[in-house]
């Protein structure tokens, strides 16, 4: 290498460093932030923010395992985070760059430590439950006034589903959500890790699959809000967003979210920094910005998910902090369960079961 190319390389490296110092790339779930916060972050820090979205943990995980994603901050859910940590996908947080960590809520931190011991690699962004979204008018029209809207029987009893099929039902396209729910419905351990127990979910899901309009993890927000479907098994905040979109559109659609009485999955979306993040300093700046009590409250007020930030509670709107569908009361909290990641062999059984549920073969 001669002097000229050497200096060229040096110049290029410097420019590359300069570019990355001013840019932070965030990869978050779709419909999951108040976009005004993004502009606020840029204005406060002078760092350019590039914000991309995904709608499935699987897509994110593949990018993390392939490496070189180019993202500085990503938001996997607990079980996925745990597996990606063991695959070496994330770097430990430098807590000295995160003064706002003191705002975090110890109750949630204690739960997320199940996936990330000591919360060394991640901070909680939001958490929620997986439950049932209903178009009240249509469901009552189909099933009568006493439709079991707060029970898993609504979506797992073929007699109910057969009738609901006429107005449309969406399920999340996520076996890690549906299989635990089906197991809970038949009284098995939703966090079962053995093939034998997991396979007991199959007849439950196969019994209702002919009546499911679509398995999809983000379309149901609009589909519910527009009245295209009458039931969705999905994530709490998404269904509450559908409720608000319908109210705004004033189209006569009334949406409710119910945490199933049998119990519901409680999940945690965690912000973490990939091991090969181009701009770790910018990533820490973003995490710290998000952990600001007012910023976090603004995000929750916008997307209707609870967060793991204790200090943000005083800034939350009453229709968020006061809604037991978002911040469940003690009784409901007792009824929520968490799951842990499947190992590779069990994962294959789970996916195969899911393919069978979706395609019938």
């Amino acid at each position, binding site marked *: 290498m001669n002097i000229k190319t050497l200096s060229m390389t040096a110049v290029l490296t410097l420019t590359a460093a300069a570019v990355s110092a001013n840019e932070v790339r965030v990869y978050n779930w779709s419909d999951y932030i108040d976009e005004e916060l993004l502009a606020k972050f840029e204005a406060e820090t002078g760092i350019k923010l590039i914000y991309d979205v995904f709608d499935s943990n*699987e897509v994110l995980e593949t990018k993390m395992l392939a490496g070189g994603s180019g993202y500085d901050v990503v938001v996997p859910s607990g079980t996925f985070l745990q597996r990606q940590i063991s695959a070496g996908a994330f770097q430990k947080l430098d807590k000295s760059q995160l003064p706002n960590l003191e705002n975090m809520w110890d109750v949630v931190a204690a739960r997320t430590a199940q996936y990330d011991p000591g919360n060394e690699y991640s901070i909680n962004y939001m958490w929620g439950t997986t439950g049932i979204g209903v178009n009240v008018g249509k469901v009552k029209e189909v099933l009568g006034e006493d439709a079991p809207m707060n029970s898993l029987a609504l979506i797992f009893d073929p007699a109910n589903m057969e009738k609901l099929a006429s107005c449309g039902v969406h399920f999340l396209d996520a076996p890690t959500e549906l299989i635990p729910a089906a197991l809970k419905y038949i009284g098995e351990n939703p966090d079962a890790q053995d093939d034998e127990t997991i396979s007991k979910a199959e007849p439950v899901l196969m019994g209702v699959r002919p009546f499911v309009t679509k398995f999809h993890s983000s379309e149901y927000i609009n589909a519910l809000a527009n009245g295209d479907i009458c039931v969705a098994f999905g994530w709490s905040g998404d269904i509450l967003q559908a409720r608000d979109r319908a109210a705004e559109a004033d189209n006569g659609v009334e949406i409710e979210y119910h945490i199933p009485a049998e119990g519901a999955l409680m999940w945690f979306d965690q912000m973490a920094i990939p091991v090969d993040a181009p701009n770790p300093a910018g990533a820490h700046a973003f995490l710290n910005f998000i952990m600001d009590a007012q910023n976090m409250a603004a995000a929750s007020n916008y997307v209707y998910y609870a967060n793991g930030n204790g200090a943000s509670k005083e800034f939350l709107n009453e229709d968020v902090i006061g809604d037991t569908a978002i911040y469940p009361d003690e009784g409901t909290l007792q009824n929520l369960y968490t799951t842990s990641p499947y190992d590779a062999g069990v994962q294959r059984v789970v996916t195969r079961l899911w393919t069978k549920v979706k*395609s019938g073969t």
Partner: protein
Amino acid sequence: MRRAILILVPYLWLLALFLVPFIIVGRISLSDTALARPPYLPQFSWDEGIWAFLSQLDFENFWFLTTDDLYWKAYLSSLQIAITATFFALLIGYPIAYGMARAPEEWRPTLMMLVILPFWTSFLIRVYSWIGILSQEGYLNQILLWAGIIDAPLIILNTNTAVYIGIVYTYLPFMILPIYSALDRLDGSLIEAAEDLGCSRLQAFWLITVPLSKNGIIAGCFLVFIPALGEFVIPSLLGGSETLMIGKILWEEFFNNRDWPVASAVAVVLLLILVVPIVLFQRNQQRQAEEDR
């Protein structure tokens, strides 16, 4: 010398854009899945040498594909969807191409333009717009309800019918263009001669026009069939739970199972299945080129 370079260019192209990726995929298909980054083993390292590396590879992922009927069902279902869609594309595309070729000379560039025009919009947006047309509250149902043709909205979106519509719509220009170019070159006096010799117009069409446009039909069919077979975007956007296509299985292996080796094995098999029509297509093109000479 110049000739050698000219021949070299397409081969380099093939090497860089086909053979190298194929070798990468082929090598992953012989590996084992692992919780690592990237999620498969063995990783190649120069210290151990190439033989140590090769000896760790095996064909068990291909064997695995035979143990589960899901895979061949998905291949068969993809074949069936691709063949049906090709048939409908031909059914719709041929009359359009015929009309274009019979249109007055000065109109033809405009008509050609109209066929190509949709490509100016992103493929994804065009498929998405079908969601708006086909959904239960969509334009199609609204028009049919308004016209009193149906009483209740038709369920088209999220069924195989929507997938057929999507594939036929997307690939129709690939059917029209080669047929048009074959019909365009057709000598009109041949048809006049056939009619003079007592053929009805329909007979002249079957006996003269169709056989002479055969190469265009074959080319069009392959151009629709080959991409339709491995299609992923259209079935995932328009299809429902009944739609079983190998592209979706591939996606699930790769993303949901994180099993890159099995996903690669599925991809290798898909490629082998596609090689047959591609080779046939190539033969057809060559023969046509020779005939033209």
